[in-house]
């Protein structure tokens, strides 16, 4: 019973982690049809910036809970900067190229940014664990959970709900949905696709950076953290259906809970869980669990 609870809670926390890591990727893919490898860099820069700002913040005498502002501030700064610079400076020149070339271009950009990261922050790890210590932990029989990691769940729900409401209940969201469904017709109808793309990319970047920024206090922010999340985010997005936000949520839950079950019951197979689910979903539902509808071909 206790194990079951643990699987559920651990699974939910990990699912939320996955969702936060993947949601930015799926937003960008949904609107722009770009599989953005640079997402890994957003995550890493978000984490480094968060660790840096949190570190600076706790050297001041400001109230302790303000550290969370530093985290969100870091995500905003990184996301805005890279979102605008990459979309305006690189991607817009590539929109007419085929999708694989764009993936490769973002892969190249990722390589470049990995070393830029190294130039700025060096190889030493950064820690920003203060916010995690603030929230304390709760005990339940032999288990105990820290509230900070439990708050992943809350953040994931807020981000997911916010995006969903934003897409379905606002004018901007409806414009986005129109662009998602048919780029050319939207353009013909007078929607400024250029602006839509820029805004989408920036939102995606901020979300990517937020993933890194919020997770930073729980990890050692060190070289190479960006690479790991790329494959993870890809897998979640592919499982859920590329470009679908509910899909990313379901994909995260599926992988998160399965992985937690594996860790508790069959730790030997933990390594395969995510790829096995990915291959199985692709084999039976190649478009992913929640794929947006396709227009008629002939």
């Amino acid at each position, binding site marked *: 019973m206790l194990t079951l609870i643990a699987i559920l809670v651990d699974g939910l926390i990990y699912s939320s982690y996955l969702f936060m890591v993947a949601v930015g990727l799926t937003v960008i893919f949904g609107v722009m049809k770009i599989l953005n490898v640079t997402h890994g860099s957003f995550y890493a820069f978000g984490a480094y910036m968060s660790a840096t700002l949190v570190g600076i913040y706790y050297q001041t005498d400001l109230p302790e809970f303000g550290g969370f502002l530093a985290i969100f501030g870091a995500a905003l700064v990184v996301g805005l900067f890279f979102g605008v610079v990459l979309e305006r400076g690189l991607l817009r020149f590539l929109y007419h190229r085929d999708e694989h070339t764009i993936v490769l271009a973002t892969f190249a950009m990722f390589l470049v940014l990995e070393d830029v990261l190294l130039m700025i922050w060096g190889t030493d790890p950064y820690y920003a664990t203060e916010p995690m210590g603030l929230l304390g932990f709760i005990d339940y029989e032999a288990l105990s959970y820290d509230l900070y990691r439990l708050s992943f769940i809350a953040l994931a729900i807020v981000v997911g709900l916010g995006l969903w409401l934003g897409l379905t209940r606002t004018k901007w969201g409806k414009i986005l949905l129109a662009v998602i469904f048919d780029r050319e017709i939207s353009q013909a109808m007078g929607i400024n696709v250029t602006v839509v793309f820029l805004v989408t990319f920036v939102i995606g970047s901020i979300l990517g950076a937020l993933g890194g920024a919020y997770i930073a206090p729980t990890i050692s922010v060190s070289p190479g953290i960006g690479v790991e999340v790329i494959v993870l985010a890809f897998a979640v997005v592919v499982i859920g259906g590329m470009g679908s936000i509910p899909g990313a949520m379901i994909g995260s839950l599926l992988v998160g809970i399965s992985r937690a079950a594996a860790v508790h019951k069959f730790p030997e197979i933990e390594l395969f869980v995510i790829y096995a689910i990915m291959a199985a979903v692709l084999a039976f539902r190649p478009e992913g669990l929640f794929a947006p509808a396709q*227009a*008629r*071909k*002939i």
Partner: protein
Amino acid sequence: MSVVLEVRDLQKTFGAVVAAKDINVTVNEHEIIGIIGANGAGKTTFVNMVTGYLKPTSGQIEFTGRNLIGLPPREITKLGISRSFQVPQVFMSESVFDNLLMAYAIAEETGMGLLSPLYNDERAERVDSHLRRYQIAEYRNATASTLPQGTRKLLDIAMAAVRKPTILMLDEPTSGISAEEKFGLMDIIMDALRLDDTTVLFIEHDMEIVERYVSRVLAFYQGEVICDAPTAEAMVDPGVREFVIGEEYHRTRTENGGSEHA
């Protein structure tokens, strides 16, 4: 006259939507049949089912006595039913010549023959004579994407005709073509197909075209065939007048051809 195509009780539903209902059609050799009906009446669905692109929910399709249900388009094509498309389906970034060269090669090679060179001089001559027959020889080396709409339609139909099919189904051959050009275009197509004694079914909105080229009309309305009669008879059929021609007349005047859905 022998029957080449027999369709019985054909039905197609997408969830709750009925796209085709109780379709019964018999097509004889060498007939030229016009398929008319408003948008969404089920014309393209009918063509898609006969050519294997869509699987009917129920019903029978027999081609020269052979059951077509469940066969993929390529098998049906090999048996002798070809089609063209409302939006031309050609190899856009290739030249007109290469488009037809590929069409001929696929039609002519099987098995290990697929590993013989794509290009040979004899095949090139066949392609060139085909180009002349469809009067697009002057575009021989032009890239398909740069062709005028009418020429691209001709190329699409020419590719469909490469196999000398028993039946050729044309999906709106004149859509998107200016009023001045459309008769010339249809003349080229019909003259070319007559040489091979091809049976033709074509979807058409333009009643002038229908009256001029067609011996028999199939009128679709809401997934059903509401009229199957010789052209002159069909044109005065009250159902056709109410549900097809009236709207059609209106439609052809307002549509620009640009927003045709792919």
